[in-house]
C-alpha cells in the first residue's frame, strides 16, 4: 500500500511511536548526555566531560569485578543451558510415553518471576549450606554457582521447547534416507540433527546470552550482591551505584552506557557468528 494518506499513517503509527519516544527514545538520549555530567536530578546537570567514565573504572574495583563476574557467569550458563536443553530435546523427541507431561514440567519455572525464583533458591541453597555452618553470602563463588543453578532451572525448559520445535522441523525424508544408508545414531546426530537445528541454536544462544548479561532480579533476590558486592553482576552494580550513594549518579549513568555498548557488541557478534553456521537451503 505505497500511497497511504498521511492521516491514516499517523493513525496507525502515532500511539506506538509516541509512547516509544517518551518511554525509551528521550530517556535513552538523555541518558547518554547525562553520562557526561554531574547530576542528582536531570535539571541540575553540569558538564564534566569523560570524568564519569574514568571514575567508573578507577574509584573502586566494583565495576570491573562485576564485569568479570558477569562474563564468567554468561559463559558457564550459556554453555550449560544449551547443552542440557538440547540433550533433553533429543530425549523428548523419541516418542516416549509421558513426553508432554515432562515438557510441561520442565518449561514451568520459566514463567515464574526472577524475584520469586531468587528467594525459592535461597531457601534451598541455604538449607544445604547450613549443614556446613555457612550460607550463600559466605563467598562470592557460592553466589556464582547458586545463580548458575537458578538460571539453568529457569531457562533449560524454555530453550528445550525451542530445540524440540527445531528437531521436529527436520524433514522425515532426510532421517529415513540416512537410516537406509545405514547411519548410526551418532552419525545421525552429527550429520543431520545438529546442522539442521542451527537456526534454533542461533535463537537459543541469543536468548541465553542476552538474558545472562542483563540478569538483575535473580541477582538482587538470591544474594543481593553479597558478600560486599562480590556476587554483584553488572546490572546490579549499576543499580547500586545509582541509588546506593548520592553524588554517584553520573558514574552510574556512565557505567550504564558502557554496559549497553558491551551488551550490544556481544549480541551482534554472537548473532553474526551463529548465523554463519546455519545451513542454507
Amino acid at each position: 500500500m505505497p500511497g497511504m494518506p498521511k492521516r491514516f499513517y499517523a493513525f496507525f503509527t502515532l500511539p506506538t511511536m509516541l509512547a516509544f519516544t517518551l518511554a525509551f527514545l528521550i530517556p535513552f538520549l538523555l541518558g547518554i548526555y547525562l553520562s557526561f555530567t554531574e547530576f542528582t536530578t536531570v535539571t541540575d546537570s553540569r558538564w564534566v566531560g569523560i570524568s564519569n567514565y574514568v571514575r567508573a573504572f578507577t574509584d573502586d574495583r566494583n565495576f570491573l569485578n562485576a564485569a568479570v563476574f558477569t562474563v564468567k557467569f554468561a559463559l558457564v550458563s550459556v554453555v550449560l543451558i544449551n547443552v542440557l536443553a538440547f540433550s533433553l530435546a533429543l530425549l523428548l523427541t523419541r516418542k516416549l510415553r509421558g513426553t508432554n507431561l515432562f515438557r510441561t514440567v520442565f518449561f514451568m519455572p520459566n514463567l515464574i518471576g526472577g524475584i520469586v525464583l531468587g528467594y525459592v533458591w535461597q531457601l534451598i541453597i541455604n538449607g544445604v549450606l547450613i549443614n556446613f555452618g555457612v550460607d550463600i553470602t559466605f563467598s562470592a563463588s557460592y553466589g556464582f554457582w547458586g545463580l548458575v543453578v537458578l538460571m539453568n532451572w529457569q531457562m533449560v525448559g524454555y530453550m528445550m521447547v525451542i530445540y524440540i520445535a527445531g528437531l521436529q522441523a527436520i524433514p522425515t525424508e532426510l532421517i529415513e534416507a540416512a537410516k537406509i544408508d545405514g547411519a548410526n545414531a551418532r552419525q545421525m546426530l552429527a550429520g543431520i540433527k545438529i546442522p539442521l537445528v542451527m537456526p534454533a541454536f542461533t535463537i537459543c544462544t541469543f536468548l541465553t546470552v542476552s538474558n545472562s548479561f542483563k540478569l538483575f532480579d535473580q541477582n538482587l533476590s538470591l544474594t543481593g550482591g553479597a558478600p560486599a558486592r562480590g556476587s554483584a553482576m553488572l546490572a546490579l552494580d549499576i543499580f547500586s551505584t545509582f541509588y546506593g550513594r548520592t553524588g554517584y549518579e553520573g558514574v552510574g549513568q556512565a557505567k550504564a552506557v558502557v554496559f549497553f555498548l558491551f551488551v550490544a557488541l556481544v549480541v551482534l557478534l554472537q548473532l553474526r557468528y551463529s548465523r554463519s553456521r546455519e545451513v542454507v537451503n
Partner: protein
Amino acid sequence: MDRQHRVRDGLTSAFLALLAALYLAPILIVLVNSFKGRFFISDAPFALPTARTFVGLQNYLSGIAKTGFLQAFGYSLFITVFSVATIVLFTSMTAWCITRVRSRTSSLFYYLLVYSMIVPFQMVMFTMSKMANVLHLDNPVGIIVLYLGFGAGLSVFVFSGFVKSIPVEIEEAATIDGCNPIQTFFLVVFPILKPIYITVAILNTMWIWNDYLLPYLVIGSNYRTIPIAVQYLQGGYGSRDMGAMMAMLVLAIVPIIVFYFSSQKYIIEGVVAGAVKG
C-alpha cells in the same frame, strides 16, 4: 521393537521422571515450609512440619497483612491486563502499517524499535523514571504508556515477521471493494493475525506480570505489584519473617501455575512462535 530398545526407553523414562521430580521439588519445599512457624524454616527447610512447628495458615495471614498482597494482586492484574491489551492493539497496527508502507520513515521506525530490544533497562532506568514523574505517568494507568513504549520493540518485530507472510492481494482486494486502511486493517488483517496476537500477548504477559524494576522505580513508593510486595518482605538484614516470605512465594506462584495449566498449549506454542520469529 526389540528388547534392547524397550530397556533403553524404560531407563530414559525413569531418568526423565526423576528429573521432573527434582524440577518440582523447590516449589514443593517452599509450599511445605509455608505451613511451618517462622523460626523453624531457615534451620531445617527440608523437614516436614510436626505438631510443634505446624502453624496452619498463620504465615499466609501475616504475610498478606504485612505486604498488602491482595492490593498488590489487584495492581499486578490491572497493569498486566491493560498494558498487554494496549500493546497488542497499537503495536499490531504499527507493525502492519510500517511493513506495508515502504518508505524511509517506516524503515527508520522499524530499526529504532528493533534495536531498542538490545538496550539494557539500566541504561534508561533513571531518566525514564524522571520522565514518568514529570509527565505524571507514575501511577497504575500511566505506567501502561511506559509498557507500550518498552514492549513496542519485540512486539512490532514479531508482528512484522508475520505480516510479511500474509499475501498482500487480500488487502488490495479489500481496497478495491472500497475499504479505507482502517477498515482493511480491522476487518481483513486483524482476523488473520489472531494466532500471533496470542503469541505477543503471552510474551508480554510473562514479562509484565513478573517485572520488578520498572514498577519499583516508577510507582513502587505508592503502589506495590506482586514482585515488589515479595521484595518488600526482605526488609533490613535479619529482620525478615521467613514464614510470611514462604507464604508470599506460594501466593505469587499459584496464579502463574493456574494460568499455565489453563492455557498451557498456547503458552508453549506462543513462546516458540515468538522465539522463531524473533
